[in-house]
């Protein structure tokens, strides 16, 4: 299952200003919330980049990422046929079999990337997506047909609610909330769920080095002490996080 391999880029599509999607052809594995370490360079930068599974099909895997630094900048330049070293699948992923009832999927910006695969695998037919963006809206068509309703917010008001997604999100309507997005948004959603006593699982993003649980640079603090985001996570019970 978990392996290191060298693959060839099939597609590297620009989704909007700074968001791209890499497609690799082949038979890959992984559950929603898991990630791969990606690297396409020889010397610089040094470390691979952890990118979540955006979609996984029988014959291909997709990684969506935002250009935020040197590594993702290099990734964004990749073209058909270029080599990509990948290690994965890594991390725990969402516990799909034990998530049921009325579900809210709350995501912000590039945090919507892992949710495409998630909603396709969830066994509930009662999912509401709350997607918040700064201005450009994406990953909506992806989830049409898999969710009952999609609520959108943009900070500039160009689509949906003007403001933050947390303005219109009501945790008390759901049995369980699944969340991915900027830290401040996730903290807010966790607080809202705590307040209404609603189960919440979040998937975290941290700077990583090994990606496999050996180096301890990506630890997060939980009620049970330090946990490795890459190995014990990246999906955590939001109520356990400190």
């Amino acid at each position, binding site marked *: 299952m*978990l*392996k*290191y391999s060298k693959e060839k880029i099939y597609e590297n599509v620009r989704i909007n200003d700074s968001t791209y999607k890499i497609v690799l052809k082949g038979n890959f594995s992984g559950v929603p919330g898991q990630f791969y370490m990606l*690297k396409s360079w020889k*010397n*610089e*930068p*040094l*470390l*691979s980049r952890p990118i979540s599974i955006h979609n996984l099909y029988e014959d291909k895997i997709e990684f969506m990422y935002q250009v935020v630094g*040197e590594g993702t900048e290099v990734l964004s330049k990749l073209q058909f046929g270029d080599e990509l*070293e990948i*290690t994965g699948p890594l991390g725990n992923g969402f516990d799909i079999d034990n998530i049921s009832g009325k579900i809210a999927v709350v995501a912000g910006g590039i945090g919507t990337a892992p949710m495409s695969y998630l909603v396709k695998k969830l066994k509930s037919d009662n999912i509401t997506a709350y997607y918040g963006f700064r201005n450009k809206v994406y990953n909506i068509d992806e989830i049409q047909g898999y969710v009952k309703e999609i609520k959108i917010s943009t900070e500039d008001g160009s689509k949906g609610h003007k403001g933050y997604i947390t303005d219109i999100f009501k945790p008390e309507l759901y049995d369980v909330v699944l969340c991915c997005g900027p830290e401040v948004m996730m903290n807010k959603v966790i607080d809202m769920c705590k307040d209404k006593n609603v189960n919440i699982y979040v998937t975290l993003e941290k*700077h*990583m*080095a*090994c*990606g*496999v*649980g*050996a*180096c*301890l*640079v*990506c*630890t997060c603090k939980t009620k049970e*002490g*330090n946990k490795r985001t890459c*190995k014990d996570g990246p999906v955590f019970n939001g109520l356990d996080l400190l």
Partner: protein
Amino acid sequence: MLKVNICGIELKNPVIAASGTFGFGEEYSEIYDVSRLGGISSKGLTLNPKEGNNGLRVFETKSGMLNSVGLQNPGVDSFIQNELPKMKKLNTVVIANLGGGTLEDYLKGIEKLNSSDVDMIELNISCPNVKSGGMAFGIKSGVAFEVVKEVRDLCKKPLIVKLSPNAEDIVDMAYKCCDAGADSISLVNTFKGMAIDIYKRKPVFDNITAGLSGPAIKPIALRMVYEVSRAVNVPVIGMGGIASWKDAIEFIMAGAAAIQVGTANFIKPDICLDIINGIEEFMNKEKINDIKEMRM
């Protein structure tokens, strides 16, 4: 052909996974057969469990990385009870890397490890010395001598002393540690470095400084291994930025009896196998029968 002997312990080959980069071996064993390794040096242990440092713990630099993990570990007892049995099953030489904030901590840790199944102990003297205001044991040779001497008297396992490149005089440091009874010297640990977030106008790490590792430090580490190898007559284990079989051979030629691979495990998870295979191919091509023959 690749076998090496370090203080009476036979290693299948001279490639050891370095402390702090390989956990307790289990994580990487999911990716490749880690029994191929010459040995694994455990995550740095302390007598009592440690939570490690707060704030950001890793920052990439040119050809390297800074880490500020702060010796997060489960403590010696938990290591012996929970990690060591699994590590022993990996079928490679198990080295317990031990740090400490006081001499007493080192000694208590050694006592516990003495009666365990670890094959060797690697003493990390780069830890801040609580009693001397946080300056590492490994900076002044006189301080290191005292620690190593007391540890040696108590230690029943082969004792490797791992040097910090931040030592005032690395050759004198190595010499004094051997004088105090070290069976082997490993070097170098990370270099003290720092990085600043220019927009926040403050250091990126809560601890201000952090440990620099990776290819960036290789030429300096190599020079230190070369100098130390000529000054001491115990086996030297070389490390510092080794990221290819060619790097490994340079360290062996400089005088290392074995080498450790650290940060490069993050660059390519099975890089140690590439290094082992590369060394073997090189020896075949160059008609070298024994690792020792490569020493300059």
